[in-house]
């Protein structure tokens, strides 16, 4: 039977490192995805992911279960992303390269996907990536947490420490920017 996060956390606090490793297995992909979509760089997202779990492990004895473990992890990861963005003094996103690596290109193909579909999918993905890069950090974070992590408005508000109405406003503004930018991209294609 699968243990809950809370059970694994309790065992980890009791010194069972395996339980914490189970938590890593469970949460590393979401945390990495969050970091990647927030800062936009693969290698740095990996570093942030690792650092998140390191910090969580060190801070685990102080975790009292006031929030869900996942929310706690998200908060650590978002703080690290914010630090990274400030440290790097940039918007947080790097534009993807123009040239296409054919090997990566072919490797990314789904088994039943034609080259045309693959090209279209890659174009769409890059368009979204570019549009997301144009968003201010707070709007981008709200959209990432809502769209890709399925958090409720209230959870996002708690995580970001802002009123619920602010979360909605950020989402609305972010979606409006994305709508405009994606429409521009579609016109150029």
């Amino acid at each position, binding site marked *: 039977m699968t243990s809950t996060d809370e059970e694994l956390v309790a065992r980890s606090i009791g010194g069972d490192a395996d339980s914490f490793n189970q938590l890593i*297995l469970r949460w590393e992909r979401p945390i990495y995805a969050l970091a990647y979509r927030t800062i936009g760089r693969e290698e740095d997202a990996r570093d942030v992911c690792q650092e998140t779990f390191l910090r969580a492990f060190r801070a685990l004895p102080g975790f009292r279960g006031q929030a869900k473990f996942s929310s706690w992890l998200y908060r650590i990861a978002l703080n690290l992303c914010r630090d990274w963005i400030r440290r790097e003094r940039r918007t947080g996103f790097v534009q993807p390269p123009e040239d296409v690596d054919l090997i990566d290109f072919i490797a990314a193909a789904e088994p039943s996907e034609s080259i045309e579909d693959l090209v279209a999918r890659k174009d769409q993905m890059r368009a979204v990536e570019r549009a997301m890069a144009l968003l201010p950090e707070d709007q981008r974070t709200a959209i990432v947490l809502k769209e890709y992590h399925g958090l409720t408005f209230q959870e996002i508000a708690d995580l970001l420490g802002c009123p619920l109405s602010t979360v909605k406003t950020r989402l609305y503004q972010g979606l409006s920017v994305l709508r405009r930018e994606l429409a521009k991209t579609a016109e150029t294609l």
Partner: protein
Amino acid sequence: MTEHICQYSGDRQQAIVSYLYGDEGGFDAVERTAFAAHVATCEGCRAELAAFEEVRMSLGQWSPPRLRSDDSPSFGAAGSIPSVRETRRRADGAKAASARSWRDIPAWAQVAAAMLCLGVGAGIANLNVRYDANGLQVRTGWSTAVSVPVAQVSQSVAAASQDAAPWRAELTALEQRLRTDLRQTPAGAGNLVNAATAANPANAPNTVNSETLRRVRALIDESERRQQTELALRLGEAVREANAQRQADLVRIDRNIGAMQNNTGREMLRQRNEMLNYVSIRTAAQRP
């Protein structure tokens, strides 16, 4: 064309986002019902909701690169380094781990292990392969002897090695000498069996020299052995050549497929770029 002005009385942005995501936070059922009724009559809100839905579908296309398993942090009892990889391996099951460790063994060790297994298997089965005047015999501890007639083996061996046999001249000379001897026998028999019968000193002591017969048998035995050896060598060589050819073919096929994939991808990109250039030129030309 007249611009549609939204008449919604509440906070429109908040309502649109809540309605879009179906999130109850700060948007109760009464508000939802009221906004749904409004959307039914408001073209602007409908259009904006539809556009946001499209944006959300596009967002669904964006996935991060795959996370390598080596990137996982790992923690041990002391908070240091044992591995999440071990945990992952356990989670993946013992079967996968066993397959991985088997792949880690060098090829020569795997071959040695296979030979050892074969040897042990043959020992357990009491495998006994023998080739003598009675023919080829293959016997295990649980089976009776299987005999292949010498003549049959000789025929196949002779067919396989008709050319370039160093012993052929020797054998021809011996055959001629044997024919001469046989012609002198009273029975005048033309085959080797009759010759052997005739060579029996008890029946016809003066016709065929027993020494000659012994030499014939020895030479035939020797000849059979050589042919067997040669056949085995040729078979081994043929198998090696077939394997080498197969490997070469596979490499060539693989290389060709890779080249075709690269060419196809490159051609697609080239055509796409040409198309983009064409469209941009046409668009620029059409602008006043």
